[in-house]
């Protein structure tokens, strides 16, 4: 119930291509779905987030698509760049448990130039 399942585990994309990372959840109490980007040796940093009453949110080259009925959400990185190479984590927040975040397992993205 508390899990967030993320796929793929790793992803290699050519520069200029589209990177797509998918996540699925079971707990309908989740009310906030952020994506975090983590570079080696750094802590995760918020990239973009969405609430379940919105089906899509776009910020620059990053878009979250949210399908409430399927309990799935995904991150799309358009025009992927080598600087986007990082580990991406989807997460879900549970209000009833002190706004704790439950994280997916992470996707290691490598963008080849």
């Amino acid at each position, binding site marked *: 119930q508390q899990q967030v399942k993320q796929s793929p585990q790793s992803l290699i994309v050519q520069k200029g291509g589209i990177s797509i990372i998918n996540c699925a959840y079971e707990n309908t109490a989740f009310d906030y779905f952020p994506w975090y980007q983590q570079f080696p040796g750094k*802590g995760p940093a918020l990239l973009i987030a969405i609430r379940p009453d919105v089906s899509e949110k776009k910020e620059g080259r990053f878009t979250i698509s949210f399908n409430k009925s399927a309990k799935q959400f995904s991150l799309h990185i358009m025009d992927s760049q080598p600087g986007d190479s990082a580990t991406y984590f989807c997460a879900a927040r549970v209000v009833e448990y002190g706004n704790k*975040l439950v994280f997916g397992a992470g996707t290691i993205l490598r963008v080849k130039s």
Partner: protein
Amino acid sequence: EADIYQTPRYLVIGTGKKITLECSQTMGHDKMYWYQQDPGMELHLIHYSYGVNSTEKGDLSSESTVSRIRTEHFPLTLESARPSHTSQYLCASSDSSLNTEAFFGQGTRLTVV
């Protein structure tokens, strides 16, 4: 850049030693969290705090303890370090009144030899 600081960044210590990982935030956030992350793996919540004098165990059992005597400070202590404690420890904070996302520190990479 989020104002949350962790020290030390790296720590190599012998088995049986007592260690304290420091975490401080200057944002006045009420909620603070400790996550454990093995290399390339997901983040697991080990402790969280709603505010001063509040501490709760997270989803992943941990032999560490925490304290929250001041709003800005949330140290994590291991009374007797073991090699199984080798991991990266990430501290985070959030503001429940503003419903902000969690901001992460850069982490402490702990190695117990």
